[in-house]
């Protein structure tokens, strides 16, 4: 929020000040989109733009949403409607180590829920949360396509297979900055 007695800073100015490099790369991406006057055809670029922005910033802070809205000539509420619909997008910052336990059917019947509970206990966070130190995020996914290794845990890009609750502390210990 800005104070009414100062000159208001736009979302773009604020983000450029806080995250100059990331903002520049978002802008570069948006610049090459064929954006025109027709809102309906601009909308087609929304999901790609959000994917790109989340890739750059790690999440979709409100300034980013504002910039995308302005560029694509869509309203903030439309953007928020889309972000909240798709589970892949998040408007909250999430931990550096994204621990995602697969809870697809194959993993579930092999006890994935016990693995989630164990992570939750050891990291002292619930599913969908990030630890206070910003290191760990605990989430669940639906099938990463490696069902033969069920239950599967992904930490960022790394895949662990045949995970048991007893392996959880080792997986956490593997996460080094």
């Amino acid at each position: 929020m800005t104070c009414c007695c100062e000159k208001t800073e736009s979302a773009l100015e604020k983000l450029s000040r806080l995250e100059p490099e990331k903002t520049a790369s978002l802008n570069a991406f948006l610049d090459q989109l064929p954006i025109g006057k027709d809102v309906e055809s601009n909308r087609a670029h929304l999901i790609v733009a959000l994917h790109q922005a989340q890739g750059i910033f790690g999440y979709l802070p409100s300034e980013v949403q504002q910039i995308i809205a302005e560029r694509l000539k869509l309203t903030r509420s439309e953007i928020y409607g889309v972000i909240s619909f798709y589970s892949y997008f998040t408007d909250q910052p999430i931990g550096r180590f994204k621990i995602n336990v697969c809870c697809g059917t194959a993993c579930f019947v092999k006890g994935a829920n016990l693995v989630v509970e164990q992570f939750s206990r050891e990291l002292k966070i619930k599913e969908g949360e990030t630890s206070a130190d910003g290191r760990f995020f605990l989430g669940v996914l639906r099938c990463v396509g490696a069902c033969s290794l069920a239950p599967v845990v992904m930490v960022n890009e790394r895949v662990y297979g045949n995970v048991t609750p007893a392996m959880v502390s080792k997986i956490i210990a593997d996460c080094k900055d």
Partner: protein
Amino acid sequence: MKIKKPSDLTAKVAELRAGLSGKTRLQVSLGTCGIAAGGSPIAAALRKHIAEQGLEKKFEVVDVGCLGLCYCEPMVEVKSAKGKSIIYGHVSEEQIPAIVAAGASKTAEGLEALKTSLYYPEEQAKPKKKVVQTRIALRNSGRINPEKLEDYLLQDGYQALAKVLSDMKPAQVCDELVESGLRGRGGGGFPTGKKWQFAAAQPKGQKYIICNADEGDPGAFMDRAVLEGDPHAVLEAMAIGGYAIGSDTGLIYIRAEYPLAIARLKKAIEQATAAGLLGKNIFGSGFDFNIELKYGAGAFVCGEETALIHSIEGKRGEPTFKPPFPAVRGLWGKPTIVNNVETLANIPAIFRQGAAWFKSIGTPGSPGSKVFALAGKISNVGLVEVPMGIKLRDIIFELGGGIANGREFKAVQTGGPSGGCLTAKNLDTAIDYESLKALGSMMGSGGMIIMDEDTCMVNIARFFLEFTVDESCGKCTPCRIGNKRLFEILDKICAGQGTPEMLDQLEELGNVIKDTSLCGLGQTSPNPVLSTLKNFPEEYKAHIFEHRCPAAVCTSLLNYTINENCIGCGICARNCPVNCISGLPKTRHHIDQSKCIKCGACMRSCKFAAIDRK
């Protein structure tokens, strides 16, 4: 080299054939499953070994896609130029010298080759054995390098497109597909040719063809295997479809969870475009066709075709009522075909071999083959492609190797969260679209989750409902609220708070949701509940009346205790992830019930049968 006319393709293939090295191929499966199981270091070690031993003239290491034998990754197939093949599973780096030394003529000493029964109806007249896999959609997956267009061309790639563009009128293409009897493999089983005819019959103008690569059913991974193992087949089929309906634009809607498939598709599109197989004036026929990728963002309902179209338009992926069908009004209001990946993967083969050939496989009502993804408590987790009409027993016990760890078969869930379960008494059912529907389940995308006596059917129903509640888009009330209530009832039953009326409530509510929901998600979501209720009523009753979970899964109804067999070895205490087992050495130990998470690690580690689970 640009391929400008059909004869260029023939020349190119002849050139590639002439250049074949005659080397023995060492094929390493590098799909998502193979890579996760450690396939990449094996491929690297093979290359190193070949180079160190100076064997480059005799061997080449080839990265291939998934052969479907996911249970034995990392996997190496040794294949001679004459086609002799030996497959090794669970390969370790130490085994590499022995594998290379033995070559393709005999099995490496001290190792065992995998027994597989793969039959390729395009290449062989008849299968050798009775129960074998019949590979049409998965023909190339695991056999070619998916990142090389040349490998695909050597397998008759783009021949079907060449034939269609030079010899057939669009209407003939649709007719041939109708004649083949191919039905959609994405769930509905709608005749693909008919769908194409509808779109073709719409007035000329912009039309679209979309490949549905959203693969939402958790536990199904055949579309991933095709995209990672044979991406050009999908592109070729889309171009054929574009020609048939009069569309110059194809889109592939792919889920963001499949980064490898995305990368390989991108590469394939670039290669095909560079070779002139996509783009302007393909094969000099005047037909233009381009393909773009569109990404999903984690919403199951976006697999439903109208929701998928809204998602591509940049909107929330909510479904709309049909009709109008997408073939009449689809993407941006234009006629649009949505086809599943596996459906498309069958199409080049149909045009190479003809409709009659395709119809000779499978059953009259459901011709061809179907890929099933076997997962859960089965020995051979992986993909099997079988002729329609095969018995469930053959899939599970012959090809799937039966139940893992010597346990008893209990049920199999087909059709994912929209399907139902089949039990031991359905083992002799011949599988096709109709027979599964008659049993209260459905084909769905072909996921099969096998369950043994350690799986609680109430808990499974609860799991699927939790999934549905998560994934319901919220647009219609029966699905949004009804499923939530259904879930709450199941949750209570699993927690031991069930009451007798709940049995009737589940059934009544389930049927109302089925009858009144807007889209296929809600219309099918009660199936897992209704079918487990029908097939396993005694399990529901045990939970409700006796507060007992017969499969010992529902943790609220379970207690682990230590009996007098305990000799105080302490192995359970060391294995307990929450340190809730205490006791002096050589004395009977004790479990702190307030801390116990009921994971069963103690029971699995105990060698003296001293842990009771009740």
